[in-house]
């Protein structure tokens, strides 16, 4: 372990002293193994080195770890930055922008994903009832993602209620919605504007992409049984509800806000340190 941390008054810092024993031990072990593919004599030599290495190493650290002093030279140096700014325009507290200025929280995306996931079941359910006169058809079709043999089961079978199927569908649908919500939430800070548009467009695209690539390839039979018109309808339901839920949430400010004086953060009316309108020049250092 580290011998000491402080700067020594005498200008000497104690460091672990150099030693060849770890190397000897390593060589010993290697030679023992090499003995298996070469000759027993090599292995015996390895054994000797292993013993010598171990003893030597122990003596290095027991009873006291061996140390060696190292001389310290210090000097004052100039710290310069290659920051290229002429004079800063009237210094204002917002000069170092942390882009974006406001954003959504990651959890907002997750909530949107969950709400969208629930909304999606409506068009899927309608389709299932209209076409096959059973709500369970869509559920079981989804469950077939987990029970591969179901993909080629009869329509009558898929129209019945199966507890297994309901549970599997719930897990698959729940996980996927959550995942898309998570991904979406992670991306929100990068596209903080127009959540309705982003959600109405990006989220359905993401969802369709993930499901289409997964389903279409994992189970081509299943893929054929899916009605893609209703599928897209449910994507849109997902997107609209997801976007709507996201819109209900407040945006939060990114950290440059914390650098503002307390008065501004507290919303007090004072002219101390009021942020000026953003200068139109390019910021020299944004974060």
């Amino acid at each position, binding site marked *: *372990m*580290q011998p000491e*941390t*402080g*700067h020594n008054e005498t200008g000497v*810092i104690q*460091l*672990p002293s*150099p*030693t*060849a024993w*770890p*190397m000897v031990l*390593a*060589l010993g*072990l*290697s030679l023992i*193994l*090499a003995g*298996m*593919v070469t000759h027993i004599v090599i292995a015996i030599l390895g054994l000797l080195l292993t013993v010598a290495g171990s003893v030597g190493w122990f003596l*290095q*650290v027991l009873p006291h770890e061996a140390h060696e002093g*190292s001389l*310290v*030279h*210090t*000097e004052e*140096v*100039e*710290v310069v*930055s290659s*920051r*290229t*700014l*002429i004079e800063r325009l009237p210094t204002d507290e917002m*000069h*170092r922008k*942390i*882009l974006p200025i406001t954003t959504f929280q*990651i959890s907002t995306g997750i909530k949107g994903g969950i709400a969208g996931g629930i909304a999606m079941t409506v068009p899927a359910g309608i389709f299932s009832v209209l076409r096959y006169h059973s709500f369970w058809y869509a559920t079981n079709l989804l469950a077939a993602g*987990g029970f*591969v*043999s179901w993909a080629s089961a009869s329509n009558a079978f898929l129209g019945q209620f199966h507890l297994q199927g309901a549970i599997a569908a719930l897990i698959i649908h729940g996980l996927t919605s959550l*995942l898309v919500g998570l*991904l979406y939430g*992670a*991306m929100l*800070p990068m596209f903080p504007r127009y959540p309705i548009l982003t959600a109405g467009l990006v989220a359905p695209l993401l969802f369709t992409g*993930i499901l289409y*690539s*997964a389903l279409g*390839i*994992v189970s081509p039979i299943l893929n054929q049984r899916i009605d893609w018109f209703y599928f897209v309808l449910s994507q849109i339901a997902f997107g609209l509800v997801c976007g709507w839920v996201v819109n209900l949430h407040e945006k939060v400010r990114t*950290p440059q806000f*914390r650098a503002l004086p307390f008065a501004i953060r507290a919303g007090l009316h004072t002219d101390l340190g009021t942020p000026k309108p953003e200068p139109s020049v390019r910021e*020299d*250092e*944004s*974060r």
Partner: protein
Amino acid sequence: MATQSPVTAVLDKTQASQPPRLFLATLHEWVTTVDHKKIGLMYIGYALFFLVVAGFEAILMRIQLAIPNNTFVSPQAFNRLFTMHGTTMVFFVGMPILFGFGNYLVPLMIGARDMAFPRLNAFSFWVSAFGGSLLYFSYLGGDGLYGAGSAPDVGWFAYAPLTARVFSPGHSTDYWTLAVLLSGIGNIGTALNIVATTICMRCPGMKLNRMPLLVWLYLVTSMMVFVAVSPLTAAQIMLLLDRYLGSHFFDTQAGGSAVLWMHFFWIFGHPEVYILVLPAFAFANEIIPVFSRKAIFGYPAMVAASVGIGFISLSVWAHHMFTVGMGAGANTFFTLSTMVIAVPTGIKIFNWLATLWGGKIRYTVAMMFSVGFLFQFLIAGLTGIMLSASPFDWQLGNSYFVVAHFHYVLVGAILFMIFAAFYYWYPKMTGHMLDEKLGKWHFWLFLIGFHLTFDFMHIPGILGMPRRIYTYEADRGWMLLNMITSSGAFFQAIATLLFVYNMVWSYFKGPIAGADPWDAWTLEWSTVSPPPAYNFATIPTVESRRPLWDLKHPEDPDTRYE
């Protein structure tokens, strides 16, 4: 231009000029050293040596495959070449070079004097290094060098029952097993050291959420080394028992299981590829912000994504076994879990892009390699997602498409970031700058060579060219594609030699670097280049994620924002 009043602070400055030393004294110093920086450099040195060796093997293979019905090397020698190439690149180039940088940088970045266990550190290095020597010792035995000795010929994955005594008489497989076993011991030792160092040795104020992302990633990688390398070591010992003491773990004739070996191997093998790529991410996390002049975007998301990748990658190993016939349930599970990895990986890519976004980008060579990395890693991830769909994999598993996929990651992402790391930290390690002009030649030649080789390699794979064949008939339609692939390999080789030349030349003639040539923000740049044995004369205290920024901009420190 800036006329800011310079601030002064105590940066360490040790006299650089030292009297010339005798060769023997120098040698003694390196052999006995327990200093994390010297050990890091030795790791890097030996990895570079093996990079050239394994690269040479790749060139031999590409010469053999350049034209149909070629007889440049024998089938047996070809098997040995791809086995040695793969094994060397993973265990004796990838791991040591990454651990080398980790060894060098982690203590400096967290403001420590050394690793937690300096002697264990030396031991770990030497064990790995001797492992590499043992592996290559195999070239000297058996049917002589021209028939390529008795070098192992069972692939870097050493699938059973190929490794059984009946199919692999002599000692070639034992060389493979023992060499990998030794390197495993070293890797576990170093991983343990890195975990202990990051947990226990951080300087005052260096809270976990202020640690440079590089240190975070090395922490995750090291944890993964424990979890992944241990099963491999167990499997190696079982294999030795099979071969020496007549047990039958993997012997299908006697009730053993070849699939058992595959599970053991890939439980190691898949996390291993992430063990290699996470340090590459780590370099990107340090280099991209500095040359964009912006702090990394989404630090907490980056940490969460890295830890997430660490966990998820432990649950996807069997995507390497789709073609074994595991059954629909297992295939579905491993398909989906593999696809899930795309989420944290996507988060990382978006955060790097957001860091570049609106930044003041400086296209140094290090930055150019990083941008290449971003692009190529994306493509490699996409072919990975394609392969993770099990029906698709039934078509293309064991074809050249897979070879193209993983080289896209291993070369296009990992090696690119390793080059970037050299351009970025070489000045710290040697005190001299690498030549940027030569560096640009290196970058462009390598980029062209890389894309010639690996973009075109996908197509023969789709056209049905299997991997690990030593030659092929002329009528398959793979001829031109293989020719292009081989020619790209030469570009890469020339570029790499240029890079090695640049390192040697710059060591003697390169301009003096100074403590902080890139105007960077992490602690290693606050001490002289190369740093003194004790790293910092006074142990620093940090108050934010960018301690040097705070030092340079006292009027506007990061502490206000975090």
